């Protein structure tokens, strides 16, 4: 494609620490692309290298057919929305927004500045100084200041990180609307999986300087490629198992002595030891001994160890006979049976919701710590 952003073997080392490790990535023109990962995974460093604010230790950055690896930041057709916005405090909102155009030698900028302020719905505040604006307004100024230059790629470095939850949701919708409207390539760096999934067409999950998996939000969620992705994007139940029959369209597994089925297309491994994974909302609970639908995978003999009611759903923790606690989310539709702590339950889910991961991976990789 014409103006795709292409990173090839991109590497950045800070002393002995490798922040970005031999990264290959293509961001198609006009897409909303998210780089998702925990802090320290190298996503911001990657972004800064694309912006030209950091020099790669190795590898190339290409935009269309132009190699921009060695280009100074002020010569790149790329603009950044900084995490802390970095608005110029001595300039008015209008002057902030006009800054890029003026530096490119444009004299008449008023009409465009007005149009841009309208786009981000700040038309009345053009003469104010950044300090007189709220966080959400400043964020929109930062966006307008970058967008007005019509960069080939707009880089967003955790642009919503400093906003409170409600404002963040609102800005997510707005950002998505603007991206659709202007049709530019957006590369969005975030550690918020929900933000990445709601906004981006394509999400690349990064961990320790590498890309773990790249795909649409649905693909990543329904068929994670690694335990890290399975845990970082939403939650997963991962149970140790082994493939006993790996020939057919359906794999037959042995999980703690129970026969479990899995579809081939969501299996990353098809033989030997595996992690058998299923998302908590895919699992259903039924009272002990009640026979569920015949096709379902069943893990029997659980006991409810914790119940938390969260409005739309109820989250259960179920202790299994082999000691592991599994998570189950149940929609509070009113038609489902409610369970209490200590109740004996069986877990069941549809075979096609099962995914299989390499057993050599750490089952707790990517699990978010509460103190984060």
């Amino acid at each position, binding site marked *: 494609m014409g103006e795709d952003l292409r990173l090839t073997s991109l590497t950045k080392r800070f002393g002995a620490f490798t922040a970005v490790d031999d990264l290959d990535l293509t961001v198609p023109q006009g897409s909303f692309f998210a780089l998702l990962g925990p802090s320290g995974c190298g996503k911001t460093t990657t972004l800064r290298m694309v*912006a*030209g*604010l950091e020099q790669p230790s190795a590898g190339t950055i290409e935009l269309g057919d132009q190699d921009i690896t060695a280009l*100074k*930041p*002020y*010569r790149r057709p*790329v*603009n*950044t929305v*900084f*995490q*802390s916005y*970095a*608005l*110029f*405090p*001595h*300039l008015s909102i209008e*002057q902030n927004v006009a*800054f*890029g155009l*003026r*530096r*490119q030698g444009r004299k008449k900028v008023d009409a465009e500045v007005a149009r841009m302020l309208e786009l981000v719905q700040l038309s009345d505040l053009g003469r104010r100084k950044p*300090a*007189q*604006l*709220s*966080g959400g307004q*400043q964020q929109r100024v930062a966006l307008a*200041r*970058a967008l007005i*230059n019509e960069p080939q790629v707009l880089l967003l470095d*955790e642009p919503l*990180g*400093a*906003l*409170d*939850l409600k404002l*963040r949701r609102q800005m997510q919708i707005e950002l998505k609307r603007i991206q659709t409207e202007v049709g530019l390539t957006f590369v969005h760096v975030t*550690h*918020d*999986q*929900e*933000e990445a999934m709601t906004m981006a067409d394509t999400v690349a999950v990064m961990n320790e300087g590498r890309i773990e998996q790249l795909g649409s939000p649905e693909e990543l969620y329904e068929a994670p490629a690694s335990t890290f992705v399975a845990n970082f994007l*939403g*939650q997963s139940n991962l149970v140790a198992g082994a493939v006993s029959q790996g020939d057919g369209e359906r794999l037959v597994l042995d999980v703690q002595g129970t026969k479990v089925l899995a579809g081939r297309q969501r299996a990353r491994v098809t033989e030997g030891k595996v992690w058998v994974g299923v998302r908590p909302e895919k699992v259903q609970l039924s009272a002990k001994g009640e026979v569920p639908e015949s096709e379902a995978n069943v893990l029997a003999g659980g006991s409810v160890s914790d119940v938390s009611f969260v409005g739309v759903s109820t989250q259960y923790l179920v202790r299994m006979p082999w000691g592991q606690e599994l998570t189950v989310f149940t929609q509070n539709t009113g038609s489902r049976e409610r369970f209490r702590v200590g109740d004996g339950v069986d877990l069941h889910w549809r075979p096609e919701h099962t995914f299989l991961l390499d057993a050599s991976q750490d089952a707790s990789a990517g*699990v*978010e710590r*509460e103190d*984060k």
Partner: protein
Amino acid sequence: MTAAGHLPAGPVESTLVGDGDEGPRRRGPAGYLLLLPGALWLVLFFVVPTITLISTSLYDPSGSLERGYSMTGHVQNYFDAIGDYSAQIIRSLMYALIATVACILLGFPLAYAIAFKAGRWKNVMLVAVIAPFFTSFLIRTLSWEYILGDNEPVVSFLRTINVLAPDGYLLDTPFSVITGLTYNFLPFMVLPLYASLEKLDPRLIEAGADLYASPFTTFRTVTLPLAMPGLVAGTLLTFIPSSGDYINSELLGNPRTRMVGNEIQDLFGAGDYPTAAALSVTLMAAIVLLVFVYVRRAGTEELV
């Protein structure tokens, strides 16, 4: 875990709002009481001396210390002082101006380096800037007499490389006086500049680069305007004392580099209080006028 586990990172909302929402300030006697020592100090050591100085400048010049002075409203003192010493006044302001510019040229890179490039050496460098103050002003200035002396290494070297003529010299020239002024007042330029630059978010410089501004343009449109408060403060702290200084001219200059401070000192020494006072007030007025114009310009100038 769900997204609810995330806490927003980065600056908190409250830091983004200006000083506007502090609410009405409480009034009470405590505030005024706290002002009292400062106000007393000002009255005693600024207001009273200034009034005394101005009234002295209007005394009858035919008086003397022994016979006493009579207050005659003798405005002619000013015309005499300006007539006799205009050269020194202009020279003082010129020297002070050159020294201030030199301080900016030397001090800005230094302050910038300390603020952005010094890393863990920041404090060491700051101490190094202030360290000369541990020695007396007089001693420091005297040592320049040695540094710039005719048979000392600096002059010898400059003669060798033909920057100076074989019989050329540096001491007792306007150059040595201005060098002395620059040296002595440099810290007063560096410290306020450092304070301004230190507050500057390096991301703003990155933002400048990201928005098509070359390093020089970023400096002109972002760094410099944001360093303006420090630059103005530093300029005042350098220019004002330099204009009235007489030590550097006394120790490092010659009779043709005399500054107005030297003349005022001599006039007071000779007992010509009215002329000395008139000259002092004239210098003060000139400085106030220049500073006023400068601050107005620096404050309102469109810098982008």
